[in-house]
């Protein structure tokens, strides 16, 4: 070896050996340099995995017998990963052909050049599995035919992506929609139980870190589905009552029609039918179906002056307080002057000496105003408060209106209000509040909180909600007395509400509608409230027809609807005619056991 070159070899050897040392020092420096740690750690984290939100399936909604009223189905979000889009025209054409989406909108979205701020674009949501299957077939066929082509305009669905997600579905369509509500595109519940129980139904979403490194793959945390609800509603009764309100609205030329069916003993709502109704699967029609301030569910959201159905509350309060009895006589002169207001009867007539039963039978305003004055303002409003008038009934439905009950001490309360309130004027209540208040008369003086959820199913366990007492405004004897009075008055009047074979108690109501210029006498709110069978009430039906045009009187338009409703109810609820029931209950007593009847 030439000694002159030896130093070069030595230098090369030194350089080679120093290199690992430098690398080692650099590695060490990176480990302790915070800036480097953050920067490199950040880059690493970008590729180390992703945060994923696990959305639980929204809870189901069933009727009381387990029929599904709301569920979920898989649909797809179709989007494009802009980086891989080869031909926006093909994507727009295919989407237009298969889903009916607008060509121009899709073309515009798919043509956006990829950038750090534009990676993915949503083309359509709610695409059905069948449509996705068709798109996949088209994509595959194009890939087979033009996959190897280098031509710039070769047809291609490259870049198109399908992401499944669950969407709310209502198999019964518009049946019960007013009290079920709906879920919109961002999975938020509106109105009805969907709105009231939204947080429970939706469940809690969980955000998890999913590492890309398969060595770190872990089981996903258990994200329980949303709570499912079993309603008190009976699908068959609901459907039947909806058919009836539609028929009643049309037949009587009314602006709207509402029927509430309650079990007075438990407060369970068996049906709540009103107009108009929406198919919640097509919630985007909301504005069209409910223009302006039209309430979604009139039964809970629209307070109105109920008129004479309110008289049963006044009469019950008077009986309960002992200021009157069914035989108490009132001499009707046709006008009752109180607090500066003159009260007249519905026919402007004078009925002479009448008993309290006749007061109810002829629905005399003068007589009830007199009863209210006998009760006194303090006691009268105390009773009304206990009935739940002027405050929320506590029903578990979104958007309940409280109504209005002016009381002594309020700026706009006058002495005359006591007299007019007695027959349901100057007071506003929703159908559910009225039904709930009057249920005291059908349930031995006890008001059970009206409710629509029977039980909750959470984590595989069914929890019954139970029934809760809202108040006890009157004594059981009073309730039985007024029920008997009302049943008798219907029978004497040969009312349109009478149901052959069944003894029912009830009262009509015709409420004039207040306007800025006073009360109208040609547009009314026609109502009827009734319950039965009288000796063991199993249902309470509240009927309200808004501004009927065939007749303004509740007795002529609302009472027949009540009769129709009861005729359907007794069949759907397996309630035998009174004679059969009493005969069967005799057999039940003799067997001393639990028993029932069936059709």
């Amino acid at each position, binding site marked *: 070896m030439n000694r002159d070159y030896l130093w070069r070899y030595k230098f090369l050897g030194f350089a080679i050996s120093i290199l690992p040392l430098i690398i080692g020092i650099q590695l060490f420096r990176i480990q302790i340099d915070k800036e480097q740690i953050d920067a490199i750690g950040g880059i690493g984290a970008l590729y180390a995995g992703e945060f994923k939100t696990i959305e639980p399936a929204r809870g189901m909604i069933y009727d009381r017998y387990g029929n*599904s009223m709301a569920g979920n189905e898989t649909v797809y979000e179709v989007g494009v990963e802009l980086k891989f889009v080869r031909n926006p025209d093909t994507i727009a054409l295919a989407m237009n052909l298969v889903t009916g989406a607008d060509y121009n909108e899709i073309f515009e979205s798919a043509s956006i050049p990829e950038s750090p701020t534009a990676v993915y674009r949503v083309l359509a949501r709610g695409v059905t599995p069948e449509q996705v299957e068709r798109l996949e077939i088209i994509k595959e066929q194009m890939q087979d035919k033009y996959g190897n082509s280098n031509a710039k305009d070769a047809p291609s669905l490259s870049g198109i992506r399908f992401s499944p997600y669950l969407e709310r579905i209502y198999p019964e369509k518009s049946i019960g929609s007013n009290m079920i509500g709906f879920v919109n595109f961002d999975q938020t519940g509106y109105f009805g139980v969907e709105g009231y129980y939204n947080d429970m139904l939706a469940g809690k979403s969980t955000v998890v870190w999913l590492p890309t490194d*398969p060595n770190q793959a872990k089981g996903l945390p258990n994200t329980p589905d949303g709570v499912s609800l*079993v309603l008190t509603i009976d699908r068959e009764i609901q459907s039947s009552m909806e058919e009836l309100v539609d028929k009643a609205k049309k037949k009587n030329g009314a602006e709207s029609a509402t029927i509430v069916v309650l079990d007075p003993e438990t407060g369970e709502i068996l049906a709540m039918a009103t107009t108009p109704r929406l198919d919640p699967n097509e919630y985007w029609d909301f504005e069209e179906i409910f223009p302006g301030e039209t309430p979604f569910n009139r039964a809970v959201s629209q307070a109105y002056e109920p008129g004479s159905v309110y008289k049963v509350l006044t009469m019950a309060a008077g009986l309960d307080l002992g200021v009157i009895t069914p035989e108490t006589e009132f001499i009707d002169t046709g006008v009752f002057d109180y607090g500066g207001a003159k009260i007249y009867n519905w026919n402007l007539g004078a009925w002479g000496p009448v008993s309290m039963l006749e007061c109810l039978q002829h629905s005399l305003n003068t007589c009830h105003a007199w009863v209210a004055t006998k009760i006194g303002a303090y006691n009268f409003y105390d009773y009304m408060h206990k009935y739940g008038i002027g405050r929320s009934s506590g029903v578990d439905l979104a958007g309940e209106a409280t109504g209005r009950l002016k009381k002594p001490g309020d700026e706009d309360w006058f002495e005359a209000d006591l007299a007019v309130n007695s027959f349901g004027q100057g007071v506003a209540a929703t159908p559910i509040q009225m039904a709930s208040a009057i249920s005291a008369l059908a349930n031995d003086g006890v008001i059970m909180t009206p409710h629509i959820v029977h039980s909750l199913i959470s984590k595989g*366990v069914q929890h019954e909600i139970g029934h809760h007492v809202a108040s006890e405004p009157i004594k059981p004897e009073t309730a039985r007395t007024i029920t008997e009075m009302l049943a008798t008055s219907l029978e004497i009047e040969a009312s349109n509400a009478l149901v052959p074979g069944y003894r029912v108690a009830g009262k009509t109501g015709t409420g004039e509608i207040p306007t800025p210029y006073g009360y109208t006498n040609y547009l009314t709110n026609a109502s009827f409230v009734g319950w039965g069978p009288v000796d063991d009430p199993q249902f309470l039906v509240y009927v309200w027809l808004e501004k009927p045009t065939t007749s303004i009187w509740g007795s002529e338009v609302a009472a027949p609807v009540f009769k129709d409703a009861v005729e359907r109810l007794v*069949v759907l609820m397996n309630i035998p005619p009174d004679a059969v029931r009493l005969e069967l209950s005799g057999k039940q007593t003799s067997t001393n056991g639990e028993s029932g*009847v069936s059709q």
Partner: protein
Amino acid sequence: MQRLEKFTQAYPQIPWRGQTQVLGLILVIIVLVALVAGFYLSVSARAASIGRDIQAMQIQIKEIEQQNETFKAHLASLTSSRVLDARLEKLGFRPINQEDALYVFIPDYPGRRPVSLAPALEEPIVSAPILPEVYTESIFQWLYRQLSPYVLPMFEVK
């Protein structure tokens, strides 16, 4: 025999013998390291493969859950009142009228009750395994249980 003696005499004196031993040692270490590395790679590859399987199964579970929801929705649509009414009408049935109803007395039939779709909280889960005592008691408890029928009567006051 002489040849073997010569070889055994000469072998310890050959100059590269020491180098061979060092080389052999290094080779053994390399082989051991390779074995350990191979074993590690095999295990980590299996772990990675199982990890991928887990990820795939998680996606599958999600898909199955979504399918279940879709099936439930489909079933609900097929049993919706409109569909059932149409089918019943097609089969010649009509809604019952009040006057058509015949009521019969059924002893012990409580009437139609609201649905129970899951066990109530207070109800025991019947499918839960109930362990026999022998699996949970200590050896002394077991001994006591075994002997008590024989021993206890001896202490009874007659």
